[in-house]
């Protein structure tokens, strides 16, 4: 095949993941492939053979390890080529709605992507209208993406991918977990778009072989290598098979092929025992009725199927049976007993697999199995063999020490299944257990189900989107919009609708029951918008390199972030209200003063003179007298319990010695466990002692003048030495560091954990735009925060601004940039949300409180603390804040302290950029 005819060509590509210690797993093994241009190319093969890895490499989301990947005529290892050509590639990752933002509405999601590709508002609106109309999403444009059904999510994902008229569309299992009706609509949509844009190449991975038959050209893969390429017809001919499923199995190497047998279902002996029974089961969420009076009876040992579109209430029904959701109405019984969420015995007999992967991503495959085996109390001697059996049965041996998150979807599903059956449950409730699982593994799995049903008489309640699986059920229910349309054997259902296949029967049932099918215009007009799209696509095909820096892309991320913040008002309120509350707490709570310190006197002398001395202390507002001490041991004991913090020992003969001029000594013991307090106490005690001496002197004969010089003390800026005016200007910098930093701290790492970071990998957005976009909304929120705190200081605490407010505001703005930048740095460098929260706390709380001069001047610090104090932004902003509030200073005096802030902002940004990868490793 000539080079210019292939849209992508891979040569000797090898990709391995996993750590060196645990042994690397090769996802792609010395693979070479040319993908033809302008065709619909399907990647087929079992799970974990490298389909997703291949797609991630072609899309530029993943870094190339070995070999070369040429896409659209350039090397994908070259960042410059990626910068120019990635905008012509659209990539939709695996998993329902993984690249969408769940709290944003359909329109907002689309607008976000439109802006990323530099489209102005009229163009965006036109495209959004065009795309939503042709996908039937136009009625739902204001609905949050998280609340769409699986099929609609995938359509929206496709719209987002198509909004910029890509030359290469990469879809990784786009229809996995999508119901047949929605799947049909999805492929019709793709076909229509291809008619409009014949130049566009499409690369699709799929687990549904019936879908693959529609494609132009197929690549069959196994174990990181290519088995065969060619048109579906060619593959069928080559293997002499009737359908692709059989063809694929025939293409497999001998060793693997031998594992596969055609699934045979022995007849079931009916039983009078009822394992699961539901009667008028209903679930409402607010006004919405998710499950509407559903009734069924499942006999013991029966395989009972649920077939229905996404969001029709299948999962909700299953969750109610497991006790995860309480039901609004109706009754349900398991083994003849009413469903009781607190009954552990029942749980022991039930196995459940939820639709979304819900095992521990941080535990290895074996550790997950072990954990569940133990939680289900499998006796120790049976545990190991059982785990080995599961590993073998679900072909998990090669990945036994891998982490589930590094495994392909299909393998993860197998692990979930293994976990669900590890304790040999009597009832199995499986919510779409096989979506994303390849045909061979699916058949193996069904063999196991059939074995369990027929030999062990396990009752199996399963929901599925695969028609051939539905056909294997003993009985099944067609479900739609919370209602069961009909229940019977698959053959009977087919007969009732007079349909040639079960799928046709299902669609007929659905069309009878729903208006949903009418949502999509079967043949949407290809009129004005389409031609406009076409002309636009001609332009983009000219390969105009995107700008290196685009405000629109930056704005795109910024507005997305702002919208997310608006959708979660609790966060904004917490941030604003929090600073108010904390300001009150700290303004009133921090006091360096010592008051009401408990003390006791040990008076060995017991004369009027000694009583007088003791009385002197008692008169002070700083101290509170406790019962006197009887002996020196008591002083020790009572100080140890914390009952007294000060002990005064007046020696025997004090009065006599004083009169004789023998200079008696009074011993004063201070609890030094809190040094700052002890220091203050020491000062007070000495002051009181001095007072006493003055009193003595006044009574003494004239001429004796023990204290001669005075110190006239003047407290500047805060004459009453109140803590409040001193603390308020210091509290503002501290809170303005911590709260904005925490707001941004999860910005990037959350996208990493949730998967939407892929948008950053594959769209033309640069790291600078991405980070600044995430920062700006929080800078704005921080400024609001700043203004509230300043207003609070002036109007509530009565701490006036004596200097230039403008200086304070400018400094505040720069400072908030520093604070949010620090949060983003944590977010870029770290990979888990917990670490980001903890890291941000460490990086803000201690330096801001301890090293920045809030309590102790930076000039007095030592060691690392002093170094941090010198460079930490809070230290500089604190000087500005105190200067403006208390010392009546302005820009002319304070500009030197703005410079460090100005330097910090780009430094933090550069560090974040360095810490953020532009591609997946």
């Amino acid at each position, binding site marked *: 095949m000539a080079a210019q005819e292939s849209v992508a060509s891979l040569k000797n590509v090898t990709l391995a993941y996993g750590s060196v210690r645990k042994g690397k797993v090769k996802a792609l093994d010395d693979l070479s492939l040319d993908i033809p241009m302008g065709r619909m190319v399907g990647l087929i093969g079992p799970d974990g053979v490298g389909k997703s890895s291949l797609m991630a490499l072609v899309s530029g989301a993943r870094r190339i390890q070995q070999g070369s990947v040429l896409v659209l005529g350039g090397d994908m290892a070259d960042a410059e080529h990626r910068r120019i050509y990635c905008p012509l590639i659209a990539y939709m990752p695996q998993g329902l709605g993984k690249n969408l933002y769940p709290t944003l509405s359909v329109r907002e999601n689309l607008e976000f992507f439109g802006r990323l590709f530099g489209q102005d508002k009229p163009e965006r609106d036109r495209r959004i209208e065009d795309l939503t109309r042709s996908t039937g999403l136009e009625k739902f444009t204001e609905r949050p993406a998280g609340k769409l059904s699986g099929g609609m999510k995938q359509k929206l994902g496709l719209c987002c991918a198509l909004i910029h008229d890509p030359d290469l569309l990469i879809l990784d299992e786009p229809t996995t977990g999508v119901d047949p009706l929605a799947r049909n609509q999805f492929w019709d949509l793709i076909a229509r778009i291809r008619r409009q844009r014949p130049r566009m190449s499409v690369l699709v991975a799929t687990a549904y072989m019936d879908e693959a038959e529609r494609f132009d050209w197929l690549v069959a893969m196994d174990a990181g290598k290519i088995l065969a390429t060619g048109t579906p017809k060619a593959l069928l001919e080559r293997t002499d098979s009737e359908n692709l499923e059989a063809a694929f199995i025939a293409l497999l190497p001998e060793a693997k092929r031998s594992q596969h047998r055609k699934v045979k279902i022995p007849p079931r002996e009916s039983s009078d025992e009822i394992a699961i029974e539901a009667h008028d089961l209903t679930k409402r969420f607010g006004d919405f009725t998710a499950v509407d009076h559903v009734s069924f009876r499942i006999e013991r040992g029966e395989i009972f199927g649920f077939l229905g579109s996404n969001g029709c209430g299948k999962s909700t029904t299953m969750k109610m049976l497991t006790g995860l959701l309480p039901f609004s109405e109706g009754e349900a019984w398991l083994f003849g007993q009413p469903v009781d969420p607190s009954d552990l015995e029942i749980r022991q007999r039930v196995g459940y697999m939820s639709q979304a992967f819900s095992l521990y991503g941080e*535990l290895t495959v074996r550790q997950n199995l072990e954990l569940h085996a133990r939680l289900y109390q499998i006796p120790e001697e049976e545990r190991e063999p059982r785990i080995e059996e599961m590993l073998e049965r679900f072909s998990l041996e090669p990945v036994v020490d891998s982490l589930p998150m590094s495994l392909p979807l299909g393998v993860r599903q197998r692990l979930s299944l293994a976990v669900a059956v590890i304790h040999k449950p009597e009832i199995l409730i499986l919510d779409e257990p096989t979506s994303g699982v390849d045909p061979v593994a699916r058949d193996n799995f069904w063999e196991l189900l059939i074995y369990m049903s027929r030999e062990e008489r396990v009752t199996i309640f399963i929901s599925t989107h695969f028609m051939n699986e539905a056909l294997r059920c003993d009985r099944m229910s067609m479900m739609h919009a919370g209602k069961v349309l009909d229940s019977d054997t698959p053959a009977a259902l087919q007969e009732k609708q007079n349909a040639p296949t079960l799928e046709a029967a299902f669609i007929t049932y659905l069309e009878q029951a729903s208006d949903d099918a009418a949502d999509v215009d079967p043949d949407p007009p290809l009129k004005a918008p389409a031609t406009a799209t076409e002309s636009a696509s001609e332009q983009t095909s000219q390969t105009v390199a995107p700008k290196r820096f685009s405000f629109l892309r930056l704005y795109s991320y910024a507005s997305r972030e702002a919208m997310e913040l608006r959708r979660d008002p609790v966060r904004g309120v917490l941030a604003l209200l929090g600073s108010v509350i904390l300001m009150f707490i700290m303004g009133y709570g921090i006091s360096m003063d010592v008051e009401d310190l408990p003390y006791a006197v040990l008076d060995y002398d017991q004369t009027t003179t000694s009583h007088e001395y003791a009385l002197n202390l008692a008169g002070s507002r700083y101290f509170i007298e406790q019962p006197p001490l009887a002996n020196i041991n008591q002083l020790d004991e009572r100080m140890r319990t914390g009952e007294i913090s000060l002990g005064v020992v007046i020696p025997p003969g004090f009065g006599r010695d004083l009169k004789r001029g023998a200079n008696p000594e009074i011993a004063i013991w201070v609890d030094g*466990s809190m040094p700052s307090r002890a220091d203050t106490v020491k000062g007070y005690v000495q002051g009181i002692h001095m007072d006493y001496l003055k009193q003595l002197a006044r009574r003494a004969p004239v001429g004796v*003048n023990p204290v001669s010089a005075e110190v006239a003390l003047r407290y500047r800026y805060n004459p009453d030495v109140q803590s409040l005016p001193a603390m308020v200007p210091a509290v503002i910098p501290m809170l303005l560091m911590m709260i904005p930093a925490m707001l941004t701290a999860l910005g990037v790492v959350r996208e990493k954990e949730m998967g939407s970071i892929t948008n950053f990998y594959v769209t033309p957005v640069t790291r600078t735009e991405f980070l600044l976009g995430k920062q700006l909304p929080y800078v704005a929120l921080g400024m609001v925060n700043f203004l509230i705190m300043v207003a609070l200081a002036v109007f509530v605490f009565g701490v006036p601004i004596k200097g230039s407010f403008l200086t304070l505001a400018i400094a505040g703005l720069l400072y908030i940039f520093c604070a949010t930048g620090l949060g983003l740095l944590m977010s870029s460098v770290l990979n888990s*949300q917990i670490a980001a929260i903890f890291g941000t706390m460490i990086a803000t709380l201690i330096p801001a409180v301890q090293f920045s001069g809030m309590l102790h001047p930076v000039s007095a610090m030592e060691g690392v603390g002093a170094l941090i104090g010198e460079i930490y932004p809070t230290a500089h902003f604190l000087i500005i804040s105190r200067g403006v509030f208390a010392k009546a200073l302005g820009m002319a005096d304070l500009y030197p302290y703005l410079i460090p802030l100005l330097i910090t902002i780009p430094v933090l940004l550069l560090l974040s950029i360095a810490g953020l990868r532009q591609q997946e490793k």
Partner: protein
Amino acid sequence: MRTLTNILQLGIKELRSLSRDPALVLLIVYAFSFNVYSSATAVPEAPFRATIGVVNEDPSPLSYRILDAFQLPYFLPPKPITHAQMDTGMDEGLYTFTLNIPPNFQRDLLAGQHPAIQLNVDATQVSQAFTGAGHIQQIVNSETSGFLQRYAGQDALPVEAVVRMNYNPNLDRSWFGAVNSVIDQITMLSIILTGAALIREREHGTIEHLLVMPVTPVEIMIAKVWSMGLVVLLASAFALRFVVQTWLNIPLAGSLWLFLLGAALHLFATTSMGIFFGTVARSMPQLGLLIILVLIPLQILSGGQSPRESMPEAIQNIMLAAPTTHFIELAQAILFRGAGLAIVWPQLLALAVIGGLFFTIALSRLRKSLN
């Protein structure tokens, strides 16, 4: 029996999850080692390296005697300045203290005219202002009386007050700073670890998965409490033994075991609090803010940063409900004053009661949020 194995297994799972996050482990190690070290060593003696500017209008033996008495580490060498620099210097924060020795100070003193030295204090520097002013007054007083003794043959003071410091004779700030920093880390880490672990389970759907198994919310919660508590307990034991005792060379008076018992009870309370916050917050970003909102008051108002006695009565009473208040009291009693069980049992009891309360509340919320 089943409950116990479940709790054990679920706890082991938590530990394994933690070990999968090397960055987090590194941060924990940092928090309990370098972090403790740097906050212990950075806290200055008060006043420590205080800046002082002097307008000396009386170049006399007495004024130089006074100035010579300002010595490191308490004071940086006094800077001679002019009247004009006095104001600008304080405005710019160059000097925390300025001293003005008036003309003919020595002569007036000897003439018995009670001359006054003016001392200006930058009262925005809270911690130094109070103690520093006291120090300076004392220095001036003792130097003048020493001067008078020598030159005028005046008697020594009729009564000497000898102040001695118990438990920390030199009032070494790092003792207190180090222990306080360990306590802060204990509280912070335990709340974050459990709260965030719960939210992560919810965000990833794993908690739902647990609930279809024969596992109860109590078991899930106790497992989190013991596993995260253990991590923090080990880290704090390490910090006290090796960072505080060995590296910083700070003598700890009491029994480390008794302290760890107190820490365990404290962790019981704080990890329960963490779970409580995990049930209140809907998402990780909300949790992050909630933690700030709770941790700052806990750290500042529990008596770790400033003495409890000087806070408003209402705050003192409210803070009795916080475990940190009791834990800080207990830690100071054991580690500095060498108190034993006979003395600290009220704090232990208070921690157990508060912990039990938080645990019950958190558990009922967890149950509710899971249903």
